[in-house]
């Protein structure tokens, strides 16, 4: 039947077949690579782990059950614990809020100097980008641990660590937002003799502000998690309370703190998606 087809159709048919073959070879190779990675990873994990996965899996619900049983035995006064740990939660949120504010400010300045459409010098842009890369790549924990050793246990090292990380992470997103703004308003401002600062104020910031705010709100959510984690290593706040209560096996207190944390994060998640929607709605 093939011979009855015109020559160009046979060519297309053959091309299609060879393409399909290459494609299936590629999919086969990637699936094989995936399986190899998973298998070798499981071997690494199995040798590195204290308990084998088959021993641990059935014990998965032990801890949650322990926690609930413990807090059930604690009785009706459990809800008072929520009030007891509220100040710690507020101090953690305070840490996150302050460092987000400062980090955003720093990120804004960094991003201006690392945007190609605002800075003519390529070296300046490159240097500021590398600075942001390094700030971003260090996990907050590493900076915080070193600073905690140097400055002693307080909230300050955590705040500094989060500021550094936020400046790097947001700076990159901000500079991408700046580089994607519409050129026309900037050129229009330039044509009527506006200075560099005025161009940024009325040409760039006005365009990029909704995106800036969106990213900042997302960061705030991330930073609440980060400041909780840094509490574990000595920065205070609700993280430290969680750590001590877990160590002392106070189930009711642990559950209360977890409840506070999870409800804060979920509330913030909804709030930030609401803000985001209204902001982007404004933009378009």
């Amino acid at each position: 039947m093939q011979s009855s087809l015109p020559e160009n159709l046979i060519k297309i048919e053959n091309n299609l077949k060879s393409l399909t073959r290459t494609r299936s070879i590629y999919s086969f190779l990637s699936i094989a690579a995936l399986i190899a990675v998973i298998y070798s990873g499981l071997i690494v994990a199995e040798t590195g782990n204290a308990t084998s996965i088959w021993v641990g899996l059935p014990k998965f619900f032990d801890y949650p059950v322990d926690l609930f049983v413990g807090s059930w035995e604690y009785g009706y006064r459990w809800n008072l614990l929520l009030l007891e740990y509220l100040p710690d939660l507020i101090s953690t949120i305070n840490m996150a809020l302050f460092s987000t504010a400062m980090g955003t400010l720093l990120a804004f300045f960094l991003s201006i100097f690392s945007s190609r459409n605002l800075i003519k010098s390529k070296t300046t842009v490159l240097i500021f980008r590398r600075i942001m890369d390094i700030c971003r790549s260090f996990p907050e924990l590493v900076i915080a641990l070193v600073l905690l050793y140097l400055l002693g246990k307080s909230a300050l090292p955590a705040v500094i660590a989060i500021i550094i990380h936020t400046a790097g992470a947001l700076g990159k997103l901000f500079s991408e937002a700046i580089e994607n703004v519409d050129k026309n308003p900037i050129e229009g401002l330039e044509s009527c003799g506006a200075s560099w600062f005025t161009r940024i104020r009325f040409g760039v910031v006005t365009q990029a502000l909704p995106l800036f705010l969106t990213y900042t709100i997302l960061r705030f959510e991330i930073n609440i998690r980060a400041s909780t984690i840094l509490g574990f290593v000595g920065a205070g706040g609700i993280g430290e309370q969680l750590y001590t209560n877990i160590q002392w096996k106070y189930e009711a207190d642990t559950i209360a703190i977890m409840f506070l944390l999870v409800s804060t994060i979920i509330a913030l998640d909804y709030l930030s998606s609401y803000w985001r929607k209204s902001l982007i709605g404004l933009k378009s």
Partner: protein
Amino acid sequence: MNRSEIIKNYSDIVVTKFSSKMWSTFLVLGIIVYLIIAILSLDILQIHKKWSPERASLFALDTYAHKDHVTMKWSEPDDIIISFEGSRWSQYVGPYQKSDGLPERYPEWTSIGPEGETKISFKNGGFANLYDDKVTIENWPDTKETLVFRLDAQGKPYVENVDNLPKWIRVTENKIEVRPSLYERVQVYSKKVEVHRYNLGWNYFWFDFDSPLEPYGIWNAISLSFSGDRVDPNISNFSLLIQEFLNNDMWHHGQILWALLETIFMALLGTLLAALLGFPLAFFAAYNVTPFKFVRTILRRLFDTLRGIDFLIWSLIFLRAFGPGPFTGIFAIAITDTGTLGKLMSEAIENTEEKQQEGVESTGANKTLQHRFGIIPQILPIFISQTLYYLESNTRGAVIIGAMGAGGIGLQLLGAINTGTSWENVMYMSLLILGVVIFMDTMSAKVRRALIGDETLGAELQLAKMAKK
């Protein structure tokens, strides 16, 4: 036209309402008040009290330099100990111990002077000489004369020539400290004399103090492994090289690289597992695939819960079940990101173009094939780019989970910081982490750009799509 005329003529566009003006003023005032409260409550102003530049510069020095200790007890002046970083396990055999038959191994900066004293030469051209009953410092910058330190009758150290002491010598009742710069330090106590001599660089990085390959250096050792006689007759040079490198007692390369591998696998397997779980679940949570509202709502709430319970809390729960180790990290990452990826992907599925699916339907394909060829090709680039993005951020997360107790490089780092002395190891591990994170970042950015064109476009697309919902 003056201001009042403008307001009168254009009353419809000029805002003069008191409340709308005050709103922004109150906002700014509120921010300022908050910042003041935050600065006070977080003790920001106390930073100068806690920050001691001397201590910090010592730590910083320790990250890129190493030091040798020379210790002499006044009671046993013949038994001078020269050691690397003051460790008992890495002592040089000094020139004064030559007769003991030990291998002759002493640093070239020590020598025996004409009166039998031990001379220690410093980079600044000066010497510290350890005699049986005194310590002298000669030829140091800013001082022409030789300074002599002795013990008085009560056993307290004192300086013989007290006139015009340089500023960098601090004399207290029980101790004389000589520290002209960060790189040299002589401390005279009533019991002993301790000399610290700093050098730039990471010493014994490739092979540790006692390694048979140490005298060769790394390049010679590598060339030895391809040719030349066996250093250790029982083992080939190449295996010896690998073995000595990995079992380095000072840098613990084997342990640290294994921990790094564990951390990478935690992030990799966690993200993969999340992708494998989240991708199919996302289909069941999307309204254009699953008609049952009940199933969709349950899955949506499940995603929210998984995401809302932070990976910190998940890792605590898994830590109890699996003990310290990579499984804890893998499952904590996998569970949290199943929620995140599931939510994002179900939104992406709902935002797909219907026409492609209708096109497939018109050929008579069944529902499964419609989804396979109508939806998956549209969302696959977003899915892969999101997964890669989470892989990169999970690498950082795995370090943190590790320090919480799951093991890996995070725990090693925590341990090294808590010892408070091995800052060079802290630096080494930080650089390794930095390298891995930057590598992951660049790779995932490259793949993402290849898949969806511009990266920012992808991020904005995502946000715009989120907003639609």
